[in-house]
């Protein structure tokens, strides 16, 4: 365990931290997917990845607003998105890693949307009305995201020799970041006991069997991760997040409160 420096985000009520974690996952991935706009291999993919990012951004807005509301210090969704530094972000590292080539992005989408689908499905039954509402709404959107990633993984994996090689490399690139998705901690376990949150460790078996099935059909092999990433939920991030935030936040920080 790497010791995190103390920061104000550590003192949030557990429910606010929880909403922040889910909101940061969605926000950071939304930004990454937005980077594909005008860069995707075909125009339909520009639109698809942009639309998926938009869904995630909508989820992030609800979750960050809620985190601010539970915190009770008057922070808005914008304050939380634009005015926190990287150590205060609580997303998993998987969503922040560079897009890589299209196959890396598809592998990340497959891993993350399958995880998020299981999470939102379970969270739809949360005793917390807001979380249940966001999850029940979002699970149907994520169903489309997961299908999109699955279709591409099959097409690339079971495609040409070159597309197969790159899709396999994509899966291998994201694999070390998968374990973190299912690493629950005391905060999450306590919220799960209260019926508010979901213990993500319980989502792992279904994720494994789905990924194994998709990869097998795509003629890809399930990698063995030589190392595993962790620490995102405690504010430990890869170098990539700082660059991402610099781009995402600079306008708001240069012109506070700017709108159009």
């Amino acid at each position, binding site marked *: 365990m790497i010791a995190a420096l103390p920061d104000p985000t550590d003192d949030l009520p557990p429910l606010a931290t929880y909403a922040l974690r889910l909101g940061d996952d969605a926000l950071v991935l939304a930004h990454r997917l937005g980077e594909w706009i005008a860069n995707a291999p075909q125009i339909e993919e520009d639109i*698809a990845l942009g639309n998926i990012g938009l869904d995630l951004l*909508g989820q992030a807005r609800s979750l960050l607003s809620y985190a601010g509301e539970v915190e009770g210090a008057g922070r808005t969704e914008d304050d939380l998105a634009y005015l926190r530094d990287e150590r205060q972000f609580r997303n998993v590292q998987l969503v922040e890693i560079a897009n890589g080539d299209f196959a890396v992005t598809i592998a990340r989408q497959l891993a993350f949307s399958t995880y998020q689908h299981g999470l939102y499905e379970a969270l739809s039954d949360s005793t917390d009305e807001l979380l249940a509402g*966001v999850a*029940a709404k979002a699970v149907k959107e994520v169903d489309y995201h997961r299908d999109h990633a699955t279709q591409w993984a099959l097409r690339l994996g079971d495609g040409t020799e070159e597309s197969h090689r790159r899709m396999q490399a994509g899966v291998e690139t994201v694999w070390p970041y998968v374990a973190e998705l299912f690493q629950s901690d005391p905060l999450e376990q306590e919220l799960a006991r209260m019926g508010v949150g979901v213990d993500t460790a319980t989502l792992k078996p279904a994720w494994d069997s789905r990924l194994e099935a998709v990869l097998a059909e795509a003629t890809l092999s399930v990698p063995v991760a030589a190392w595993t990433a962790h620490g995102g939920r405690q504010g430990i991030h890869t170098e990539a997040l700082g660059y991402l935030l610099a781009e995402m936040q600079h306008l708001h920080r240069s012109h506070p409160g700017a709108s159009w």
Partner: protein
Amino acid sequence: MTTTSAHAYAIAGAVLDPEVPVLTIADLGILRGVNVDDDGALTVTITPTYSGCPAMDAIRADVTTALAAAGFDRVKVRTVLSPAWTTDWMSSEGKAKLRAYGIAPPERRSAGPVALPLSVRCPQCGSLGSREVSRFGSTACKSLWVCTTCAEPFDHFKAL
């Protein structure tokens, strides 16, 4: 529903969706209700089609403007997520308007472990020979199709 709230509901409900301007927000099923509060102010409740629907701000502004023009100057527009909107909230009148506009309306989504992709009827020529070009279209709520009979591309309002 009081006379005032019914009147206000009719005005708010007639606001057009900015992205599919043949549909009113009542047709779409995203207007959830209009309440007259104790102090006489109005609370309008709307719900997004998709979590990230960028039209919500425009709809909020249009509802406020339409009601102001009818003399309601104290209007609060509230956004709710529950119960989640689905394409089943769209009225059959709305679906007919969509088809006439050239957008294939949503059908009921098949549930279950194997979602069989069903054919979508071309809104131009009525043929069932069509193929999906992209699951994601010009807006979050639409996918892009092409008719194999008349060769015209068309939007399909995705079932959700």
